[in-house]
């Protein structure tokens, strides 16, 4: 084991050259020390994407549409409430509300949305990643803090860590030039933590980033966590190339979507993350982020079997049961999984399954 904190330089060396099994064994040790009781948790929740209209049009995303596209949508209240009711019936404790940056919506829309949910349901609203918060703030001409306070008063409980992608502006320039820059993503999270809201942090890797960018990302998250302690969990996942602009620009090898067109002009340097890459990044994340308690395995992008293996490479949480998921599914990747599948998957990996809430309190053991 390394003594003390891993430095950026050490982390880069580990990411590039360490033996996968040695790295995994170290991450497994740390996971055991942080979670000695052997529980692996999951949350019952639903992803509700209120709109797919988005002005950002990121090249790695297959979900966005223009406002006048034939399959552009904005959920009406009836549909939204029915989805929440169903979530509660299934034992759900949280809804994750995220959507595109819709040019015709203003802050009143979000305030009404939140308060109409809270009026009817007792459920944790985990919503609006930093790009959405910034968009709402900018269009209302408010500061981030003012915006967060208004949304919290209307019913927003916690904020998902999406939109972080890779916190390196060099990479963001290629992937998502219109999306908020790294510093802004971090400042939204910091502002949220300062007013007592908990958030998660994510990282999407396996696109055009270099190992240095991954370390930069982990370091930014660790530094912010040192200042605020507001992150509940870190969730690394790998870029899914199906149906995205990015995969049309370059040929992406690895996970293949049936709907991905084979493009001309292949670039052999551009290849998405394999299972070995995923576990390496996951294990390094566990080790580097010594101040974040929970690391999520991403069965949605990796499948149940690799998610099970992840539990020995640093992960202690299985994320959400995903009663509904639209964004990853739009890349052509979908694994059909029920709550029981998740419970069985955790158990057959040698761990004790438990349902948790947004704040990682255990609600029910299985």
């Amino acid at each position: 084991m390394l003594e003390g904190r891993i430095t950026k330089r050490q982390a880069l060396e580990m990411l590039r050259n360490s033996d996968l099994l040695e790295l995994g064994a170290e991450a497994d040790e740390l996971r055991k020390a942080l979670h000695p009781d052997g529980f692996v948790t999951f949350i019952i929740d639903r992803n509700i994407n209120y709109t797919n209209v988005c002005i950002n049009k990121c090249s790695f995303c297959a979900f966005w549409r223009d406002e006048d596209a034939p399959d552009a949508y904005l959920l009406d209240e009836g549909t939204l409430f029915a989805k929440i009711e169903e979530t509660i019936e299934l034992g759900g404790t949280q809804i994750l509300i995220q959507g595109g940056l819709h040019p015709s919506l203003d802050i009143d829309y979000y305030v009404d949305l939140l308060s109409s949910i809270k009026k009817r349901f007792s459920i944790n609203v985990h919503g609006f990643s930093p790009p959405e918060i910034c968009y709402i703030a900018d269009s209302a001409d408010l500061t981030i803090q003012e915006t967060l306070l208004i949304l919290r008063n209307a019913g927003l409980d916690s904020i998902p860590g999406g939109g972080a992608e890779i916190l390196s502006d060099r990479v963001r320039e290629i992937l998502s030039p219109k999306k908020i820059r790294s510093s802004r993503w971090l400042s939204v999270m910091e502002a949220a933590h300062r007013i007592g809201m908990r958030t998660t942090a994510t990282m999407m890797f396996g696109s055009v980033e270099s190992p240095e960018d991954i370390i930069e990302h982990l370091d930014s998250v660790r530094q912010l966590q040192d200042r605020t302690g507001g992150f509940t969990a870190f969730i690394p996942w790998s870029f899914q190339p199906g149906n995205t602009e990015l995969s049309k620009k370059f040929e992406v090898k690895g996970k293949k979507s049936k709907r991905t067109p084979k493009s001309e002009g292949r670039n052999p340097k551009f290849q998405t993350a394999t299972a070995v890459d995923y576990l390496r990044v996951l294990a390094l994340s566990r080790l580097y982020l010594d101040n974040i308690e929970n690391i999520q395995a991403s069965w949605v992008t990796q499948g149940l079997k690799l998610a099970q293996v992840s539990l020995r490479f640093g992960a202690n949480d299985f994320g959400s049961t995903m009663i509904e998921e639209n964004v990853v599914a739009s890349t052509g990747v979908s694994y059909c999984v029920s709550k029981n599948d998740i419970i069985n998957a955790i158990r057959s990996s040698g761990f004790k399954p438990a349902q948790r809430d947004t704040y990682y309190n255990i609600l029910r053991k299985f």
Partner: protein
Amino acid sequence: MLGKIEEKVLAEKRLTKRDAIRLFESDDIFSLGRLASLVAQKKNGNNAYFIRNRHINPTNICVNRCRFCAFSRSAGQEGAFELTIEEIVSKLRPLVHGDRPISEVHIVGGLHPQWPFEYYLEMISTINKNFPKLHIKAFTAVEVDYMAKISGLGLRETLTALKASGLGSMPGGGAEIFDPLVRNRLCPEKISGGRWLQVMEAAHKAGIRTNATMLYGHIEKHEHRVDHLLKLRNLQDSTGGFQAFIPLAYHPKNTEIKGRYTSGIDDLKTIAISRLVLDNFDHVKAYWIMLGEKISQLALKFGADDFDGTIIEEKITHAAGALTGEQLTAEELVHLIRKAGKVPVERDSFYRKIRRDGKGHA
């Protein structure tokens, strides 16, 4: 962590039944992976093999009713199919020409109640005549036993006739789990484990190389897996005819015994323990159709040295809810192997490196 067992492996001493059971009971997957990798490294260096191949199932009509199988049908039942020899030839024709031809066809199917032995001989000889360079790996021990029965020829003559028609080698299917009690619950109509081993012994003696498999993750216990591995190791000691061992993860969909998918951790442990116990097998294969490409790639870090192949069409595992597609391109296989830190080697059916410069085997 594995103490004495680790010392034995490092000293190249044979593991006992008790050692093997202890390995299955251990949760130290990291030591298991490291030790199995050491053994794989000694046997195959840093190589990971793959093959350009195609699977063909001539029929799914089968007189057996194995409880774990979702592929088989009775004659006349909905979904039953049988291919003519012309259909088989026309499936192969586009794949054996061009600058990237497949080098092997893998043929397994049901035990058809009407087809005579001559039909199988004609199938093999017609493929052989049409595509003389294509290696034909065909018929599990279960099918060969059936052919010996319907032809009235003994095992030896049946195998000799198949070989004379152009059979190049045999796959390792139908082994399932040898233990009689487990086997009786899984597949009561199928030949016994003892008979499966007899057919393989006869094949090896007739100069036909074969593979061996084990279907795990259904109702068996660790001791049954170990018993299975040790029986294979014994036969290999006397014949040396097995090329690769292929652990097959059970798939529960549409089968009679139902149950669950195996865990990714169990898959990797089973690969590693197979590598450690089967010290007289050259190769352990991560069959990606059954493990998925992600676990198969990781298996290369747990003692496997072979990724199987391009496959192109797969019906048996897909009938039982395979979580994979039916084909990977050679480029995708090469990419996965490289990213696992191994050297991709395109092989022929006997694990010789194939050179694509027109000069034949290296």
